[in-house]
């Protein structure tokens, strides 16, 4: 009898574990949402099809969870077996019943009084592995919590927050490691990507996104500029288990708008890096915007798709970049395959056959101001795109606008802004935007759905042929994935600056989105 009890306990405990194999095969369990982008390939696509084009018009609020925070909620909740794990900014974690929004536990973190984060003390979510959840903090720590209780298991320092380092991205669990990106591109940090042992918190490797002396790529930074060159890794990347490669986007070179003090290509800023998952060694890189002077971080989500490109079956990477171009790369080699602008761009004559932009003359920021499209927030930004294997379309929220870019002095002071001047927006022409469905084989836009304000919300596609998204005015909407026609919307009453997720709770498909300081969850019928 005792032996049986132990066996039962052991079995249930194993079933609750989110082991690496489950993360690799997450497509096989669409009822859960196990990583930031819904799987290592980062499609932000749900295989659930209870919600369809025919019934989505009947979606109703099932529950809301209010968080009493003044910060913007950018969290993507994770869901496993009916339990939702989400972060309340800056750095509290909640576990809820995903079916009715009632909390099981919360973890509260005390933070130092003064934190230097460029754009709000935000957090985009946790990673899950084994019986733990992991969160990066704005004071640049990484913490591991017990999934059943929220108890702190370990807490390690990632970097020195007083120098402008912080963690805002959701970590990514890969094998036995927790991969963590760093923020601080506006503070002259030296960017990196870290891997920590999920069991102990010990750092296993670090890849500096700015090569130090003697390392190839170092020569792309004039003088001492590499020490304060930015290139942060502030949005979660992707992973290919077969190639054993981690793909991660890197942010702007610092100072943002003054390139004169950091002459050279500034590797590996505004790039995608492909790292060996076991060693952190660089396999390849592709720099979208060499020597960027417009703050066009390449921290967008690497979307991994196996498919045909120009008649050949390939392992591809789709990338809607802040610099206004949609890219297709070969993710085995980093080879450039295609680029096409998805909004107005006035900075590049063209992208050459190697994928390097041929810049237009006088497109850099200047003392008198240079008018360039897109503006500093880019044609798109950090918010997640989505790829649907059904429609084979790449969905992206975009903003089409211009700004005047000024160049100015850039004295570095640890822990202080390091901009090199500021761009100016055009007041009577804020621009226009949309959700675009891009055909990845050509870069052509199949349909677009207009947005009123510059977006901050990610997109989710579902097997019910739907695309969910949100607006700054608080509207959460569902579109027909094939035509872009709006099928449903609800006013959540707060800014939506997060990505939606879908999952099962008590057998019913639900869709959740952070808005204002709350999480809203919609479904067809009450499951509780």
């Amino acid at each position: 009898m005792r032996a049986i009890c132990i066996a039962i306990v052991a079995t249930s405990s194993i079933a609750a574990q989110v082991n690496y194999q489950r993360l690799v095969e997450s497509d096989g369990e669409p009822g859960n949402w196990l990583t930031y982008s819904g799987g290592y390939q980062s499609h932000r696509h749900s295989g659930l099809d209870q919600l369809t084009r025919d019934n989505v018009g009947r979606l109703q609020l099932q529950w809301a969870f209010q968080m009493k925070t003044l910060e913007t909620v950018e969290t993507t909740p994770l869901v496993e077996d009916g339990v939702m794990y989400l972060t309340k900014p800056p750095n509290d974690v909640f576990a809820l019943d995903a079916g009715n929004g009632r909390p099981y536990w919360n973890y509260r973190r005390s933070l130092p009084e003064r934190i230097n984060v460029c754009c709000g003390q935000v957090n985009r979510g946790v990673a899950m592995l084994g019986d733990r959840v992991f969160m990066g903090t704005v004071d640049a720590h990484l913490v591991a919590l017990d999934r059943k209780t929220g108890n702190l298991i370990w807490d390690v320092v990632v970097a020195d927050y007083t120098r402008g380092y912080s963690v805002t991205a959701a970590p990514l669990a890969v094998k036995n490691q927790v991969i963590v990106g760093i923020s601080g591109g506006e503070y002259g940090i030296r960017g990196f990507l870290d891997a920590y042992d999920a069991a102990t918190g010990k750092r296993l490797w670090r890849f500096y996104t700015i090569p130090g002396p003697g390392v190839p790529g170092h020569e792309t930074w004039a003088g001492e500029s590499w020490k304060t060159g930015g290139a942060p890794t502030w949005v979660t990347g992707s992973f290919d288990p077969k190639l054993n490669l981690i793909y991660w986007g890197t942010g702007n070179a610092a100072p943002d708008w003054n390139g004169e003090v950091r002459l050279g290509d500034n590797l590996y800023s505004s790039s995608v890096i492909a790292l060996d998952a076991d060693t952190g060694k660089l396999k390849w890189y592709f720099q979208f915007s060499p020597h960027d002077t417009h703050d066009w971080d390449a921290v967008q989500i690497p979307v991994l798709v196996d498919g045909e490109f120009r008649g050949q079956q390939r392992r591809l990477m789709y990338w809607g970049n802040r610099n206004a171009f949609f890219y297709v790369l070969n993710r085995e080699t980093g080879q450039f395959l295609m680029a096409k602008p998805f909004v107005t761009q006035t900075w590049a004559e063209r992208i050459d056959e190697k994928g390097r932009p041929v810049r237009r003359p006088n497109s850099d920021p200047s003392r008198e101001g240079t008018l360039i499209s897109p503006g500093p927030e880019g044609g798109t930004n950090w918010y997640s795109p989505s790829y649907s294997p059904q429609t084979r379309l790449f969905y992206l929220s975009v903003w089409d606008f211009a700004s005047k870019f000024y160049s100015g002095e850039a004295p570095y002071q640890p822990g202080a802004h390091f901009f090199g001047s500021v761009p100016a927006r055009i007041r009577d022409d804020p621009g226009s935007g949309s959700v675009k469905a891009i055909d990845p084989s050509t870069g052509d836009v199949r349909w677009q759905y207009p947005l009123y304000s510059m977006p901050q919300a990610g997109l989710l596609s579902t097997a019910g042929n739907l695309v969910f998204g949100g607006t700054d005015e608080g509207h959460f909407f569902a579109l027909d994935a094939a035509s872009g026609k709006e099928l449903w919307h609800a006013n959540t009453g707060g800014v939506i600056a997060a990505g939606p997720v879908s999952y099962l709770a008590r057998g019913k498909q639900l869709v959740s989105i952070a808005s204002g300081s709350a999480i809203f969850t919609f479904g067809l019928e009450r499951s509780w």
Partner: protein
Amino acid sequence: MKISVRAKVWLCILILHYTVDGIARAQDSDSAGERLFRLHCAECHGVDGRGGRGPDLTRGVYRHGSTDQALYQTISQGVAGTQMPGTSLSERQLLQIVKHVRGLASSARVSVPGDPAAGRKLFVGKGGCPTCHMVRGVGGRLGPDLTNIGSLRSPPNLQASILRPDEDIDPAYWAVEAAAKDGKIYSGIRLNEDSYSIQLLDVNENLQSLTKKDLKTLTVDKKKSRMPAYAAAFTASEVEDLVAYLYSLQRSARLP
């Protein structure tokens, strides 16, 4: 009369620099404050402090405390729940920024030509300004309330707004014209808008919320102010009087 927002504060600061007693003494730290503001604050608050992603700092009243000490604290520690970060600048640098921010609010008074009492007569009489502008609870609502305008804007800025109101229009006063499918016509200023609806104050000062799918046409004019240009209506000395009146409308009791 429409007192619109203009990016001319550099000029104003320059003028103030040489006009106001005591400013010259602190010129060095002023320019240091300007420079620090440009480097560390302008990204969100605008080079001229008129706001952007961050709030307008030219109004002299700050949500998180308006004393020097409160400003110092806000700049140093940041504001929880906003995008305003703390900073590791030195105490001296922080004080220089505080001083600069104070200057942005045009709190330093300058003397202006013109007669405020005569200006007031023009304002309520020939100008017909109270049709659209309120001063201390009296007047219309289709233009900005001018009760404290002298604390918020410099004389050159006030003059530009009277003579050339189209040069810079506050998005809070963009003109809206809408025709509904049922034949109703709406005209007013835009209060808010999203993908589905638009909220306005119509010319009869009624609040209207229109659903876009019910509209046949909708135009939001971002380039043309509802306020007519008064360059031809007033003589140069009348404009001076009007500016003097508007400039006298201070936050404290300074009405003529």
